[in-house]
């Protein structure tokens, strides 16, 4: 599945009400480590039908970043049934990201 761009309007629907586990990638264009992480996040989205991967641009979505207390990016937050279950900050290899969803 493709990575879905999420904003304030569709966040509830796409993330909080998702049946699947969600990996939310908070990022920005100016952030180098975010660009390094991007291909990995896309790989997970392509390979894992059981996981929904979403991307949130923190410059456009300041309120979401604030609400979820994102203070450093890249920040990947795992949500299950609308609740945060794990998060990782900074560039991480794929295996580390998969650990967020219990793999």
């Amino acid at each position, binding site marked *: 599945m493709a990575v879905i761009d999420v904003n304030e309007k569709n966040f509830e629907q796409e993330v909080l009400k998702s049946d699947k586990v969600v990996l939310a990638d908070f990022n920005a264009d*100016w*952030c*180098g*480590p975010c*660009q*390094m992480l991007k291909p990995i996040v896309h790989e997970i989205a392509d390979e894992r039908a059981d996981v929904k991967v979403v991307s949130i641009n*923190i410059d456009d979505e300041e309120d979401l*970043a604030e609400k979820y*207390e*994102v*203070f*450093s*990016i890249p*920040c990947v937050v795992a949500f299950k049934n609308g609740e945060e279950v794990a*998060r990782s*900050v*900074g*560039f991480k*290899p794929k295996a580390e990201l998969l650990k967020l969803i219990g793999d």
Partner: protein
Amino acid sequence: MYDIIIIGAGPAGLTSAIYAKRASKSVLVLEAKAYGGQIINTPDIENYPVAAHISGFEFATKVYEQAQALGAEFVFEKAVDIRDLGDIKEVVTESNVYQAKAVIIATGSENRKLGVEREDELVGRGISYCATCDGAFYRKKSVAVVGGGNTALEDALYLADIAEKVYIIHRRDEFRGEDATVKSLKERENVEFVLNSQVVKLNADKRLESIEVLNKDGSTRVIEVKGLFVAVGRIPENQNFGKVVNLDQSGYIVAGEDCTTNAKGIFVAGDNRVKNVRQLVTATADGAVAVSEAVKYINNL
């Protein structure tokens, strides 16, 4: 067996890979995290010849692709040891052992930590080592910077434009950094100097709420800040190699401008070498020099 194993895929290691491939040597590059090293955190590089403006990420990606196109192999594993068996060197990673005739250590450096309890847990929840990366999240909030060098002073100046209030905490009453920057900081109304003091405690529930600082005179003070930017220097990532090559007191590998260590066939390139100027351009230069010496060494085996 490879001709050359390069440990680290930052600017020094990647440049080594380019030079080694162009010298027709077989090359394996081992990298613990991602290619690029610390330069990927720099939003805009303005002091590298030819490129007036280039982001660290774009720079790293271009050099990485250049090395790949020339045929350098990349494996993303952390090197934990080097075994010097004379004409053969073994590089041990967390999952494999690789052999080569020569090794170039280009592991660079990492941020020095404060060493205060809960520091690791609060990274990304108030603790940061990169003001230009994370400063934007502290708009209109109070923050503190710890350190006395240029990085700390420049971080404080950068944050003074964003944050409501910036405390600069330093364990002495004089700064190692430039006087001009100190002067600019003193002119800012929202900057407060907390001197002769060190951070001894981080108060946080889920995220940083305040810090406790201890003054030389024994008094303590609690300062409410949402962010604490740590700029107390960097430490070379040579911890795993002290058995095979000589390190100086600060942990840097001892080698002159020829990048040759005390161990024959083991070379060093980049920020983890003893040197005065640690810049992108000196890292890439080391890459070329280290390979030149490594090739000479291999050809004489």
